C-alpha cells in the first residue's frame, strides 16, 4: 500500500525529466529509517496535497542539479539560486505533482494540489509523527529526493 502511493510521484518525476529535460531516470525506493542527509546544498519544494490523500510531497533538489536543469531548459548559464530559478523549479515540482494526481486518480484517489512553496535548507523537513515514504530519483545530473508525508 505505502509504496503504491509513492509510485505515481516517482513515475511522474521520471516521465517529466525525460520529456522536459531529455534525462533518463532510475528510481530507488528508500527505507524510512535511512537518512538521506548529506552535505550538499539543497532546494526543497513543498506541495500540499488535499483530498483523499491529505499530506504533502517534498522534492529536494541539489543546487548543482537545479542549475543544470534550468540550463537545459533555457540554454543559458545560471550560477545562483535566484527568484527565476526558484520559480522554474517550483513549476517543475508543480508539473510532476499534477501528473502524479492523474496517477492517483487511476487508483481511485481524488486529490488536489496547492501552489508550490520553496524552502531552502540543508535539512529535511520535520517529519515527527507522520507516515513518510521516500524515493530517490537518479539522473545523470544528480539525484532528486521525493518525500511523501501523509497524516499521522
Amino acid at each position, binding site marked *: 500500500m505505502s509504496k503504491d502511493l509513492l509510485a505515481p510521484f516517482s513515475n511522474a518525476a521520471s*516521465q*517529466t525529466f525525460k*520529456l*522536459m529535460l531529455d534525462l533518463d531516470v532510475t528510481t530507488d525506493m528508500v527505507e524510512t529509517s535511512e537518512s538521506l542527509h548529506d552535505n550538499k546544498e539543497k532546494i526543497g519544494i513543498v506541495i500540499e496535497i488535499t483530498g483523499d490523500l491529505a499530506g504533502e510531497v517534498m522534492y529536494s533538489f541539489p543546487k548543482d542539479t537545479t542549475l543544470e536543469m*534550468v540550463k537545459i*531548459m*533555457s*540554454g*543559458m548559464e545560471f550560477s545562483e539560486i*535566484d*527568484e*527565476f*530559478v*526558484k*520559480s*522554474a*523549479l*517550483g*513549476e*517543475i515540482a508543480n*508539473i510532476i505533482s499534477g501528473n502524479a494526481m492523474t496517477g492517483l486518480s487511476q487508483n481511485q484517489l481524488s486529490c488536489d494540489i496547492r501552489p508550490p512553496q520553496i524552502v531552502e535548507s540543508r535539512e529535511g523537513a520535520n517529519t515527527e509523527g507522520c507516515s513518510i515514504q521516500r524515493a530517490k530519483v537518479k539522473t545523470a545530473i544528480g539525484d532528486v529526493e521525493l518525500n511523501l508525508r501523509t497524516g499521522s
Partner: protein
Amino acid sequence: MIWKEKYKIGVPEIDGQHEELFARVTTFVQTLRSDKPWEDKVAKVNETLEFMKDYVVTHFQDEEAYQAEIGYPYLEKHREVHNNMVAYVAAVSEEYEKEGYKEELMQQFGGRLLAWLINHVVAEDQKIAEYARSKEVTQ
C-alpha cells in the same frame, strides 16, 4: 530554449506558433537575465510581455480550434489548462503594473513561463498529435 523537430505536432500553423513562442520566450529570458541594470532592460521586457499576452491567446484559440476539428476528446481539460495560464499571465501583468514595474516579479514570471511552456508543448500538446496519428487525421 532550443526548438526541436520532435516537438512538432504535424500541423504547420500550430508548429509555427510554437516555434515563435519558443523564440519569443528565449528573447524574453535573455533580456531578463542579461547583466544590464533593470532600468536598461525594463522597456524591452515590457514590450515582450505585451506581445506574449496577445500571442498566447491567439495561439491557444487556434490550437483549441484544431482540437475541435479532429474531435480531440480532452479538449475541455486542455482548454482549462490554457485558461489558467492566460489568467496567470493577466494577474502577473496587472500586479507588475500596479507595483511599478519591479524586477523580482518578472524574474519569477520568467522562470515559471520557461518551465510551463516547455512542458506544455512537449508533453500536453504532443498528446494532440498522438491522438491525431491514432485517428490518421493529421493533415
